[in-house]
């Protein structure tokens, strides 16, 4: 096998892989729950769900642009969404997940943040997204509800 064969095999692999039909894609651990919980129910009574494993479904409305370490899942109610956060590198969500539908499983985390902590988070988030951040927009303290992600299927 000479180098020309190796090169043609490599080119073929690249071409074939680019033609693969995109179906549902699994990220992280396999989903274990069958019953879905409404995002609106979680946001209405966060303390009731704190520490519990849940499965939610909704449109992916935002993705961490730099590391792919979180997605925002739309609620079943208008003007609501919940963040599905994973540790850096555990799952890497692609930007093209934006707009697709996610089935996401994880543990609900409810945390209260001070104004200072919220400003720090805001700065970090703005840096990640390449956006401007105005600390004066932060009012607090605030309760943040998010899903500590374990696994997801994006379709």
């Amino acid at each position, binding site marked *: 096998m000479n180098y020309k064969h190796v090169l043609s095999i490599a080119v073929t692999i690249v071409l074939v892989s680019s033609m693969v039909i995109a179906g549902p894609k699994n990220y992280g651990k396999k989903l274990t729950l069958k019953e879905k919980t409404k995002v609106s129910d979680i946001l209405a009574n966060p303390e009731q769900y704190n520490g519990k494993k849940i499965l939610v479904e909704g*449109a*992916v*409305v935002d993705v961490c*642009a*730099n*590391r*792919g370490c979180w997605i925002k899942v*739309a609620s079943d109610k*208008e*003007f609501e*969404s919940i963040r599905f956060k994973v540790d850096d*590198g555990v799952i*890497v969500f*692609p*930007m*093209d997940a*934006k*707009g*697709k*539908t996610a089935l996401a499983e994880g543990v609900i985390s409810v945390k209260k943040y001070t104004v200072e902590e919220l400003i720090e988070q805001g700065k970090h988030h703005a*840096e990640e997204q*390449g956006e401007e951040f105005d600390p004066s927009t932060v009012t607090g303290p605030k309760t943040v509800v998010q899903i500590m992600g374990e696994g997801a299927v994006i379709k």
Partner: protein
Amino acid sequence: MAEFKWRKWNNILHRDIGYVVVALTLIYGISGLAVNHIADWNPNYKIEKEIITISPITTTDREQIVAEAISKLNLTGEPKNTFRPDPETLQLFYDKKTYSVDLPTGNVLLESTRPRRVLFEMNQLHVNAPKKAWTIIADLFAVALIMMAITGMFMLKGPTGITGRGKWFVGIGVLIPLLYWVYYMNFQ
């Protein structure tokens, strides 16, 4: 009994492992440079933002808002999904494009995202996004690098080898992370 020529085999190992890991070393090296500067740029995606202006949308019915936005933006086809983060905003999700419409003003933020060619794939492999079999390949590559380092030290004998000036270069290489760590722990 023939004498075992360990240095010959050491050099063969170093040479041949070196050939095998050329591509992987380049992938991890180039991607490492790109990801190191993640605070200054997005190494995976090229994200372009532009502002488009349409006339304000005053209707309050959700379906009408979506239809009006699609019509005013001259978009073909239905969006993959829609979302309203707040009462004044509508987001339309198309393939690699997101339109965020400010309903009262008609200002639209169009965000187009596309992966950086080749670099995106390199970074995905570097951060082990695929998991599964790639974890094994990445582990084997790490072992290969360790072997390259060890066999590399014993390739030459004499004044340019590890017993000659080589030991000083290895020493400098050991001191770089060691001294930096001391500095980082005490002065940063």
